[in-house]
């Protein structure tokens, strides 16, 4: 497997949507290509960081205000 072929399957590898056979090939490539190993690990880490850090938080006070406004307008529509 070449690096280009590995890259084409990177998402499937990360998302776990490859067959056992393909996974074995991808893992074999990772074992002998430190560059692809870095790309794989840091891409996975990128996703994990964005998943675990809420960068646009909705503060409780704003949430309450917006929630109340939505419900008030829905009530009017009844």
């Amino acid at each position, binding site marked *: 497997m070449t690096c280009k072929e590995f890259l084409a399957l990177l998402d499937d590898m*990360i998302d776990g949507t490859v067959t056992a056979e393909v996974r074995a090939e991808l893992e074999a490539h990772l074992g002998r290509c430190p560059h692809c190993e*870095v790309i794989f690990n840091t891409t996975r*880490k990128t996703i994990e960081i*964005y998943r675990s*850090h*809420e*960068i646009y938080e*909705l503060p409780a006070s704003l949430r309450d205000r917006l929630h109340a406004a*939505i419900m008030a307008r*829905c009530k009017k529509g009844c």
Partner: protein
Amino acid sequence: MPTIQSIAGELEPHPDVALIERVRGGDLSAYDLLVRKYERQLFRIAQHITQNREDAEDVMQDAFLKAYEKLEQFQGNSKFYTWLVRIAVNESLMRLRKRRTGKMVSIDEDIETEEGSVPRDLADWAPDPEQNYNQAELGEILRKTIQGLPQGFRIVFVLRDVEGLSTEETAETLGLSIPAVKSRLLRARLQLRERLSRYFHRKKAVRKAGVGK
């Protein structure tokens, strides 16, 4: 995290279905529960697209109102959450179009979508690189980095990787084909990785530059 539909989805309807039935029967308190359940996600998605807090507030409100008004049209073929997200995405894009002549024009440094498709930065990151920054600094880095992505990549990444929609749901929500979602997701992930690498390697790069002098 969005609720994952059980494999036996046919036999066990999604918990939202019962709430929707109650709303249709005139029980507004059931809609209150649905709003509470999804308001944070909708706000986040709207903010990611509009990149403007006030717009995100308006989009969130309008999306829930629109969903309420159109609830009779909800067929139940897709999850209520996916349907709601589609409304919020459309509302966000509409708001963005109104502002188009303003600040959106400046986010164009990597409109050339080839950037990041071929990974260049091949140096490894430190273990838990986010530990080198406090919460505020890290938040700023993550915001800045994702804001720099082309819009079409950013939405796909947010829906798929941050909000946990499936590839199929993301395609349906955005009106894209599945291959298009897959291709955009790969590019989005690689571009974000490349851009985050700059921050996470900064200390190392500075040291190297110093040695080279």
